[in-house]
């Protein structure tokens, strides 16, 4: 039953062909099944209670929450040993909003520790495996959410996205990943990684579900000053068949094969598949053009991102000292206690990032590191905003191919050639742009995705283009391993 989308489930509930209770039972059963197969959850909420069925499309419907959202009375760990026993006494605003609309949380999903990773392998409960092929990674950091939605545990799960953390795992798991404009969904209660780049968002199996779930979560929040009033936007109602005259662009330097003298077979197929998708878009009346960029500038996206995100992260996570929450450590003095807690609690990867973040913020280094990175961000955002004066969105392939192997047998080292291809999703976080990934094909029986990113506040436009593209591709509502692909 749970392989259906929200609208289908809602109709079944309204017509009493199923109940919230039975959907939740099924979802919990599937959760345990997937947990055994892919290790996607930190917590399965076995005592989750059904809710009343109302006109609300998501009422009574189960969903999953990435474990970096604060959930009242439910363990919230951010997949970190520093919070392995933390039970919040308040809900994140996004969660409170979903509760109000009657959705039922059934599990908390694994992430890369505090969202600071892109593999799904650094959570304190171990690696998340890709349900399409358990030898592969899901990517991250919204790893468990991506695996669970792809596996059909529920129609939607919450993610968070600081660099590509919703949109990349969505691509590797053959589903939809959507990160709305910065401030559309409140970040209150989202455990921060890098506040100026963090976005709440959603993983689903179709664009329509992404719109419905986001409609329920979004809204101005007096507890988050960066939120804005979106009460005049209804994403679900804005979906229609009218995309005539919409204009997209791609970056020649990213998608033309000639940029990759050492292209693997995978990459060739991926780019070829991208161009085929572009041809299909043109057939439904969308204009797609090629644009060029300063490669030198765009190649620095990744390092600028590292600088900014690590700097903000080291500060954001300074509240983790084991005094008010978290497993307190031993120590003779309070500083010793704090130090032991942090030494024991953070994984080596996180510590490395903190050292980097702290280094780039040092008085003598700020100018050359942190501020230069923030200047790259400014230049790139300005260039994108200029493009958005002409175009409705940027369209690019996600990553250099399908999910890599967990054991590293396909090396993830970013060679200079594919630097922009691997990092361009960060543009969406730099500018706070709405950005959506949808599946657009298969390579080696593994899903790959395509991404559309638009200007701030133009979420409805971006979703509608993705909605129309999705309707001409055969991957809508697909379940991991459950379809015959072309």
């Amino acid at each position, binding site marked *: 039953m749970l392989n259906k989308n929200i609208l289908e489930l809602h109709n079944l509930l309204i017509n009493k062909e199923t109940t919230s209770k039975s959907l939740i039972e099924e979802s919990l059963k599937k959760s345990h099944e997937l947990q055994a197969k892919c290790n996607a959850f930190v917590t399965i909420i076995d005592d989750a209670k059904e809710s009343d069925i109302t006109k609300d499309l998501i009422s009574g419907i189960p969903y999953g929450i990435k474990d970096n959202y604060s959930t009242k009375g439910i363990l919230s760990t951010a997949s970190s040993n520093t919070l392995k026993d933390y039970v919040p006494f308040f809900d994140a605003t996004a969660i409170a909003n979903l509760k109000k609309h009657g959705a039922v949380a059934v599990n908390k999903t694994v992430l890369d520790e505090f969202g600071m990773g892109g593999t799904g392998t650094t959570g304190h409960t171990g690696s998340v495996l890709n349900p399409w092929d358990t030898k592969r990674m899901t990517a991250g950091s919204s790893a468990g959410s991506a695996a669970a939605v792809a596996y059909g545990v529920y129609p939607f799960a919450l993610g968070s996205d600081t660099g590509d953390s919703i949109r990349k795992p969505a691509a590797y798991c053959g589903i939809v990943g959507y990160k709305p404009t910065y401030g559309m969904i409140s970040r209150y209660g989202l455990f921060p990684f890098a506040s*100026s780049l963090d976005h709440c968002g959603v993983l689903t199996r179709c664009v329509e579900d992404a719109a419905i779930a986001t409609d329920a979560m979004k809204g101005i929040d007096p507890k988050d000053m960066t939120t804005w009033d979106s009460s005049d936007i209804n994403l679900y109602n804005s979906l229609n068949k009218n995309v005539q005259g919409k204009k997209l662009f791609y970056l020649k330097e990213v998608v033309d094969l000639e940029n990759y003298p050492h292209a693997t077979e995978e990459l060739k197929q991926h780019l070829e598949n991208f161009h085929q998708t572009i041809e299909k878009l043109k057939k439904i009346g969308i204009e797609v053009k090629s644009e060029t960029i300063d490669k030198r500038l765009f190649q620095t996206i990744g390092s600028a991102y590292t600088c900014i995100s690590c*700097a903000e992260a080291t500060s954001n996570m300074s509240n983790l000292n084991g005094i008010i929450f978290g497993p307190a450590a031993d120590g003779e003095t309070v500083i010793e206690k704090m130090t032991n807690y942090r030494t024991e609690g953070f994984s080596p990867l996180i510590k490395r990032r903190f050292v980097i973040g702290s280094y780039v913020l040092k008085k003598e280094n700020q100018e050359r590191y942190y501020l230069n990175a923030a200047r790259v961000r400014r230049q790139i955002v300005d260039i994108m905003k200029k493009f958005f004066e002409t175009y409705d969105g940027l369209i690019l392939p996600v990553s250099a191919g399908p999910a890599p192997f967990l054991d590293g047998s396909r090396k993830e080292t970013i060679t200079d050639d594919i630097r922009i291809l691997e990092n361009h999703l960060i543009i969406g976080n730099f500018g706070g742009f709405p950005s959506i990934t949808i599946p657009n094909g298969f390579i080696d029986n593994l899903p790959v995705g395509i991404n559309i990113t638009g200007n701030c506040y133009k979420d409805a436009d971006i979703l509608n283009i993705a909605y129309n593209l999705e309707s001409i591709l055969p991957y809508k509502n697909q379940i991991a391993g459950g379809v015959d692909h072309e």
Partner: protein
Amino acid sequence: MSKYKAVIGLEMHCELKSNSKVFSEGKNTYNEIPNSNVNPVDMAFPGTLPVLNKKSVYQAILMALVLNCKVPSYLYFDRKNYYYPDLPKGFQITQMHAPIGTNGYLIIDTDKGEKKVLIHDIHLEEDTASLDHYSDASLINYNRAGVPLLELVTEPCLASAEEAVAFLEEMRRIYQYCDVSEADTKKGQIRCDVNVSIMDQDAQELGTKVEVKNVNTIANVFETINYEIKRQTELKEAGRYDEVKQETRRFDEETGTTIKMRDKQDAIDYKYFVEPNIPKYKIAEEWLSTIQNSIPNLPRDRKKEYINEYGLSEYDANIIIKDKDYANYFEECVKIGIVPKTAANWLTVSIIGYLNKEDCQIKDFYLTPVLLSQIITAINDSTISTKQAKEIFNKSLTELKEPNTYINKDNAQINDKKELEEIIITILNNNPSQIEAYKNGRSNLFDYFVGQVMKETKGKANPNLTKEILKEKL
């Protein structure tokens, strides 16, 4: 200090008055019960975010304007990163890059005349939690965490402890007059850091700057500065000026000395960067001018007015402006028609004397200006004597009944000439021998007759009128 001059700079932290904290909806009131004024934001629970209080911004801008500062067109904040158990977030939200006010000045009165104190900047930030120390543990109380603080930084432009204290006292008054803070040092609402260096009188180059942190009363600021000047001067005199280090010290109340905390090279790198969770806020011109127009009459202006327009002595004016509530009381008296000098006299002598003795506030003082005016009117129309007035003042305060209760026919002065004449004639008729003696030159017997009249009238006879009639009849 003849050979040398001191150069002093101050950093003054002042807690602001508001309902809620600066970055959360936690209560900002004094509360003796620990952790009873706390919002999840104040304890930095994961996922909580700062939400800026409009009132705090208003107060900060108000003070920036009072101090003649330049106010930036956009308001934003920075994070000051350091670890300490009283700092739950691991950073303090403050303003480093664009303080709410920069490049200002304030003119104050000192013993040596007017002084222009240059203000480097004034910025809005949050207070830390407080630690209560016990023999074996420290307890953390988050009531104070997130309380709005204004930090004012002067240029190193003060020359003595007296000037520094005059400036701090003036600032304290301004905070109170503007109603942005109680500025009560007893409640820890004012805390100072003091920078002191000395240099040869004719030197161009500044000496080595020593910073003394967390000096918590104005009296201690005075002591700190004088101690540091003395310490640095003695070292310089002894040819050991190289022992004056650019370092951070603290004031030790018990010994009245300063004690080294850390060297300059151990200074913490706070890794300041812009707080991304508080968007840049455009300070509208309109709002600025509204705030400018809401600046109340400040103590120094009021003092001038009292002296120049009301003819008060500088001494009296200084006493009255010391406390905003005194000044308001005085002005209310003038407003309802009491002669300014009379009001000042009552206030500075009887009222303040009473308040000090009873240790209470003028806000809670029973004799409001209107009630006080009952006594003053009675004196003016000679219904009571000044001696009686004093008695009525006290009686009224003891019994909490309005003065008019005691100003009645019964104890009213006898002002009626006919009535007095009758009494005087009777007395004269009963004392023929004294009249005889008086007329033979014993002029001091005049007072004897006055005394007799007072005795007969139980002191209620109008003394001037009595003398007048007596002269006539004798």
